[in-house]
């Protein structure tokens, strides 16, 4: 299978990146010191290894389909991204995106995939890296395949319905293993899976449906983002009261008796002296 450079797909990607950058700029608020953006590259085009160039520099050589590269820590700014056949000159790139805006502090996945019509595209997704409550996990499912709208099911129940190419479904769930599959929207016609997903606590698991339904190359690619955990609310570990190391009642009694005795003695002394 060969990939034809598709200028339109690339343009769409570039526009999306720029739109993303603009949104990021407005949302970022006061001028804090900006952290680098975290950028991960996901390869979801079957059958075609590529070299990934960032600003003309070969960054990920021999990048195989189904693999995930990164994260790259990139200062905010504009980037030229190009995908070539391994060893090819950057001038004969399969896909290029120029002046892609990478906003500060963002966590982005840049996904090389097929669009709904089966043409290669490079689509940026913004990853939700908000902290998770203790015990929770985040599942994000992205449609990046040349396939119609699908439902994503967990344990046989639809969790994300009518997801189309370039879109995602997202939910925070209890950590643990779920059996997930992908069916044509509104049907029981399975196109992918079932696959057991071990959803780690405090992490986001991003599952990409990639490939082509027509070419029967549909597959799943998974990316994980860890470090989103929170500490438990507390550690309640006793309700008996035996370990209270405060002064126990008998000793208070001894002290009180002592004070009374001393007072009584002093009174007698005072009275005796008066006589």
């Amino acid at each position: 299978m060969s990939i034809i450079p598709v200028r339109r797909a690339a343009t769409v990607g570039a526009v999306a990146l720029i739109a993303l950058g603009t949104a990021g700029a407005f949302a970022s608020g006061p001028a804090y010191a900006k952290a680098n953006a975290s950028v991960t590259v996901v390869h979801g085009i079957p059958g075609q290894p590529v070299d990934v160039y960032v600003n003309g520099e070969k960054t990920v050589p021999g990048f195989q389909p189904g693999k995930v590269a990164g994260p790259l820590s990139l200062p905010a700014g504009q980037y030229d991204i190009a995908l070539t056949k391994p060893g090819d000159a950057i001038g004969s790139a399969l896909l290029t995106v120029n002046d892609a805006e990478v906003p500060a502090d963002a966590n982005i996945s840049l996904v090389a995939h097929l669009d709904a019509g089966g043409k290669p595209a490079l689509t940026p997704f913004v990853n939700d890296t908000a902290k998770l409550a203790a015990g929770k996990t985040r599942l994000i499912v992205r449609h990046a395949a040349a396939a119609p709208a699908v439902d994503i099911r967990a344990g046989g129940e639809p969790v994300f319905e009518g997801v189309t190419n370039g879109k995602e479904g997202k939910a925070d769930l209890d950590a643990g293993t779920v059996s997930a599959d992908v069916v044509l929207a509104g049907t029981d016609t399975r196109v992918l899976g079932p696959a057991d997903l071990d959803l780690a606590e405090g992490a986001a698991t991003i599952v990409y449906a990639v490939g082509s339904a027509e070419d029967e190359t549909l597959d799943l690619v998974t990316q994980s983002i860890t470090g989103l955990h929170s500490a438990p609310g507390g550690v309640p570990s006793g309700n008996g009261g035996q370990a209270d190391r405060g002064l126990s009642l008998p000793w208070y009694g001894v002290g009180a008796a002592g004070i009374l005795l001393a007072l009584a003695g002093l009174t007698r002394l005072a009275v005796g002296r008066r006589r």
Partner: protein
Amino acid sequence: MVALGVSLVAVSGVVACQSQPAADFATPVAVAPSSAPAPVRVPVSDGSPPTTGADAPVRLSIPALRLDAKVAAVGIDERTGDFAVPPSVDRVGWYRFGPGFSAPAGSIVVAGHVDSAAEGKGAFFRLGSLEAGDVVTLTGPGGKDRAFEVTARERYRKTAIPLEKYFARDGEVRLTLITCGGPFDAATKHYRDNVVVTAVPRA
């Protein structure tokens, strides 16, 4: 009579002073990880689903407390969002979402009851009496031992304890033991404080 009274006051005073818990001690543990600079070559990983390996400690022994307790893998109490400490007081609970037995980094957390109204004294009844240098041994899967040495004992009000630090998954590897302590409120059946003991791998 005055002398007797004064001496009784003095005795009770001495007992009161002695019953104060020993002062906390601590050796700081580096928590902040060093963030790697932008790599020239990007790590490439397989896009297959990750698996969480079984790395659960099974026993905890502390010779200084004559303690050898079974360790249960526990998570979060769904109702409260709190650490799900095993209800049985002779067991302690390892926080299965955090670093495990053989973790190279972060805080391995084991919490246990100081006591319970139903079962009396718990495995961690005397945790607060551990001293610097005391040995704590975790037994992992397959009977492998990992020895730690106490470096810190701290007591915090539950409302002020820096739990994020104790449940960190990065920084130097350490074993964190947690139980309850401090004054007990008989009305709410809660201790006011948490006692935290930190131990680092023995050299």
